[in-house]
């Protein structure tokens, strides 16, 4: 039995009320950016001031919301009706984060410029293993720890991060202390330690997006094990792009066994006023069989997801793709399901 049944909070109640930092990962292309954005909207609809950030320099948020590329600066991206909160967006890049960091802690001034001239900024941010990641998560840490009393600094009730894919998430969050092995002392190391403390705390939840296919589900399981092994808090599993559930088990069984009652079907189709030539009827049956096969695959993968011991949340595959309206729909489903 999965956690989703064990906990079974009443529908519409958020399952992660104490979480401030939501990290969204998953296999490439399963919908991390989409889910992160929908989650941010859902959290804002609950009255929270939300920051949605991305860290891979892809401008996925801007593309999704159809706005110009985001700078290294928090921008209002969605404002709901009265009573709901606002959603801001930020594209974090390591270069800007490094220069900001140096300025904040060392007032480096001239040396900062020199670093740039000698290729050190480029080096530290694109190459030096681990340093880049600490800079990116460090910026998120900074945003998560702002004080309401600081003048001008915006306090965020929730931060949603569109994170790197499952294959790199543990390393990104510094689970195996790769950086520690490399940089054993020094401020980057202590910065990494501070960030790790936040990441391992109950203020954080790492959600994994998957689709009901073999490789993504496998990766999700491996990812959860790795994260948990590293002491990081796993949140929910978001099952994305679920096929329509129009046919019940019995109907699918008949389709798979190819013993559909054609007479009955033709009769109903006539009632529906659609043509009932044999070609069309066979085509519909063929599509149904294809769908039933796909559902069989999804069902077997769903069983595996349910054994992962994390609550799961399903999102439908939107046939027309994800536009703003579609994003609102997905956000609603997440709020209903309790992820937000």
């Amino acid at each position, binding site marked *: 039995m999965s956690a989703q049944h064990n906990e079974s909070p009443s529908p519409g109640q958020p399952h992660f009320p104490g979480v401030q930092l939501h990290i969204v990962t998953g296999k490439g292309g399963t919908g991390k950016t989409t889910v992160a954005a929908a989650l941010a909207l859902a959290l804002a609809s609950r009255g929270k001031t939300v920051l949605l950030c991305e860290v891979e320099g892809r401008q996925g948020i801007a593309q999704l919301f159809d706005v110009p590329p985001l700078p290294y600066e928090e921008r209002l991206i969605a404002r709901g009706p009265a009573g709901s909160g606002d959603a801001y967006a930020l594209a974090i890049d390591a270069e800007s984060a490094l220069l900001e960091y140096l300025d904040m802690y060392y007032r480096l001034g001239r*040396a900062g410029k*020199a670093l740039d001239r000698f290729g*050190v900024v480029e*080096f530290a941010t694109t190459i030096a293993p681990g340093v880049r990641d600490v800079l990116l998560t460090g910026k998120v840490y900074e945003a998560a720890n702002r004080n309401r009393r600081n003048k001008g600094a915006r306090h965020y009730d929730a931060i949603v991060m569109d994170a790197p894919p499952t294959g790199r998430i543990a390393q990104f969050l510094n689970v195996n202390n790769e950086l520690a092995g490399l940089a054993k002392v020094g401020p980057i190391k202590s910065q990494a330690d501070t960030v790790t403390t936040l990441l391992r705390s109950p203020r954080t939840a790492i959600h994994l997006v998957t689709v009901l296919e*073999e490789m993504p589900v496998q990766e999700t399981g491996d990812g959860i094990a790795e994260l948990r092994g590293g002491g990081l808090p796993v949140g929910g599993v978001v099952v994305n792009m679920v096929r329509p559930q129009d046919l019940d088990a019995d109907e699918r069984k008949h389709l798979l066994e190819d013993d559909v009652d054609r007479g009955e079907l033709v009769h109903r189709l006539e009632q*529906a006023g659609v*043509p009932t030539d044999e070609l069309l009827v066979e085509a*519909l049956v063929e599509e*149904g069989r294809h769908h039933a096969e796909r559902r069989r695959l999804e069902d077997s993968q769903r069983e595996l997801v349910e054994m992962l011991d994390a609550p799961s949340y399903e999102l439908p595959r939107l046939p027309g793709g994800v536009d703003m309206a579609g994003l609102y729909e997905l956000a609603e489903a997440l709020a209903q399901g309790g992820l937000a």
Partner: protein
Amino acid sequence: MNAPPSPRSATHRSSRATARVGPLIATHDPALVLDVDALLDDRSRAIIVCCGSGGVGKTTTSASLALRAAERGRKVVVLTIDPARRLAQSMGIEALDNTPRPVPGVDPAAGGSLDAMMLDMKRTFDEVVQSQASPEKARQILDNPFYIAVSSSFAGTQEYMAMEKLGQLDQDARASGRWDLIVVDTPPSRSALDFLDAPERLSSFLDGRFMKLLLVPARGPARLMTAGFGMVTNAITKIIGAQVLQDMKAFVAAFDTLFGGFRQRAQRTFELLQDRRTAFLVIAAPEPDALREAAYFVERLREESMPLAGLVVNRASSAADGSLSSHAAMTGVEKLRSAGQGDGLAVGLLRLHADRLVVVEREKRLTRRFATSHPDVPTAVLPALSTDVHDLDGLRRIGDLLGAQMGHSSDQQGA
């Protein structure tokens, strides 16, 4: 032969910054169809590289092509990068040992054969170091913490090592005659361009300004040092600590003499990719991101004078019949519903049909858009099977569908 590749600046990494390449005005010729079997049977093609952004089916497509070529009589080796576990098992390559092994169950009737291997990136890197340096020096490098970090986690190492391995296989193939076709899968990068750019990125890192700077004190006269150097080292020490700097210096000093060799190898492979013996296949899903990446890649190949064979649109949705529109199907559903027949097989099938047509229409629109701006790129459309592809039969099915393109129109058909 074309000019050798020039060092690329960081801005060159994405062709987003370069001019759009296209027909300028749309033509209304039907899209060119990719003749996969002609490609596989063309003995002058010795290398097929499958590129595309992550998750689109590069590994599946490259394995299917390799199997089909082998069963059509070619002596094939396929270099896969990250196969799904079950696929790796059924190809007999779950052991990550960097050596091509015969794939069990391949039909040898046409006189061909199929070997497969899975890339071990760290091992490949280690082997290059070992082949370039004295045993003692190699040890020094392999044990350096900085080397270990770079060789196992530097973004781009996998791409670099895939190219390196391709170069090795090609040499091996030509020397031994063991293979006459190499099919290469590429790493699951977010951008297909990474495959072409990674070697350059790694090179410019290892040969970069900063690395040079680290070498200066080891080499000599203080006058070479610029005034800012002390300041810079201080700042770096502050940030990452003295130990890392020390490891890096040791690594750079040891690696310095190898570097020329590394660069040369990368250059040779790059030239190999421009050779007429090579063909690139770009794989994309019928999704905006994947097709955009495919477009960048196609434009970039042209810029680099690299031979493009065509585009494979993988996992396309298909509707078995187009005569009933999605609107008509939904009208039918409404009718049944108001007659109190709101559930049942007919309603379910009509709804599914409507949903499916919306997906198919959207995918066709996206694919057509690509074809309009790249009218000269032959395209194959590969339907999504309802199950994963995890054994030789599955690969054969994909291969058959790829081979059957010529018989069909460019309309989506199948499964």
